[in-house]
């Protein structure tokens, strides 16, 4: 069983086993999982938007949307770098942190396959299903802080909360800017 699957089933036990394995991770190797996550995003968006994937299209969508993974990486580094230096080291901690990307990656691929459309399948089931990766990711991230960074439960919960707030906060601000939320809200109020 891969760490990605095991983390979805039993995150604390899995991270405990991974943290104990004596292994150092070169910096470049620690980028493999974020790179895969970016590729998943590129493939999923290309397929959802056009019904197909081509090398040129996926290269384009992956590069354009890699900023979303970069935001994840930046937030992760801020939260894990300090404690990681005392435990498994920053590159290995970063690598293990991104081992938890599977729930959202699988959800994105499911969206691409479901392909909601005004003339076809509705969007609602996909949106409702997002509760699953949301809940799993919170569990996985919390387990990471406890088992890999050896933080106490309170500190782990706090960092998990900050992590989720930061990620969703940044994405919300970007989305609100893109859709011009202010005039819409003024219109609703009026």
């Amino acid at each position, binding site marked *: 069983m891969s760490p990605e699957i095991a983390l979805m089933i039993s995150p604390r036990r899995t991270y405990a086993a991974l943290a104990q394995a004596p292994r150092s991770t070169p910096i470049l190797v620690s980028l493999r999982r974020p790179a895969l996550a970016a590729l998943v995003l590129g493939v999923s968006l290309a397929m959802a938007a056009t019904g197909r994937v081509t090398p040129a299209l996926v290269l*384009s969508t992956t590069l354009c949307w890699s900023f979303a993974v970069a935001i994840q990486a930046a937030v992760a580094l801020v939260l894990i770098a300090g404690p990681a230096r005392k435990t498994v080291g920053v590159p290995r901690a970063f690598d293990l942190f991104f081992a938890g990307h599977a729930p959202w990656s699988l959800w994105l691929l499911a969206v691409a396959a479901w392909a909601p459309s005004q003339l076809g399948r509705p969007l609602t089931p996909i949106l409702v299903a997002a509760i699953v990766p949301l809940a799993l990711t919170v569990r996985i991230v919390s387990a990471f802080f406890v088992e890999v960074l050896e933080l106490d439960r309170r500190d782990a919960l706090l960092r998990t909360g900050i992590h989720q707030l930061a990620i969703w906060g940044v994405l919300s601000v970007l989305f609100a800017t893109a859709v011009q939320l202010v005039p819409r809200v003024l219109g609703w109020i009026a």
Partner: protein
Amino acid sequence: MDRVVFGARVAAAVLVSMGFMLSRDAGQLAARPPIERAGYSVAAVDLHVHSFPGDGVLPPWDIAVEARRRRLDAVALTNHNSTHSWRLAQLLAPITGRAGALLMPGRELTSAGYHLAIVGTTQAIAWRQPASAAAAAAHAAGGVAIAAHPARRNRAAFDDAALVALDGVERAPTLIHANDQLDEELTAFYERARRVHPSIAAIGSTDFHRFAPIGMGRTYVLTSAPGQAGILDAIRAGRTVACDGLGRAYGPAKLVVLVQSDCRSDATMPPDGQTGAARVGTWMVWIGMVALVLLGASSLHPR
């Protein structure tokens, strides 16, 4: 066990690679053969498309290629109160190329109580003004103003003065296929607009963000000059027919007759260049990606 898993990862990567080889474009798609009707050249356009960077998922250069696949001659990039995406496309054109449909600059003017698709200008237009003033500003900047998905809740913003000032009305945005009530509201709005402004253009558009295919709603524009200038002039003159995702056409009866068959065939035919091999390739990539995610990048119990 490690060897088995490693072998499975390699197989998944090979599946993805083979999928990409099968699904790659064989070559640049040719432009649509020109359609001539009653002395006009007919251009198929989507005048309401959102792009990256913005709240659309595709960057402009990919939208242009996808629009050409969907037998469109032009699309208008209409992000909310922004033309950054179109400007980025122009900046990066030496790298990305200019393949595909014509990209027209525009914005979806997002105000409190109404939205306007303003096409044909990059000039900034303030959203804190009535719809009639925004339309006048669009004209002064050389563009056209189209009421975007004007539902009942927008009725107050689109008074008679606004309807006179507007160039077009979205009669067939793709939203109507998911919402019968909206279809009724848009029908009522279009009829009211035509009573006040008989030559107002009927517009079909996708309001593409991420899922509905570009060109699912489209406008057939009867132009007498090529390119963006000809498209804008035709909209101003009301020489348009809106076509929805089911192949139904809306607009002046004399014009609908000219393009009804194009509307039906464009709505039902698959995209140009789509082959069985490409579809298989796409699914091979998808399956390979699922496998790569599940198989992971390392072992749970490394030696």
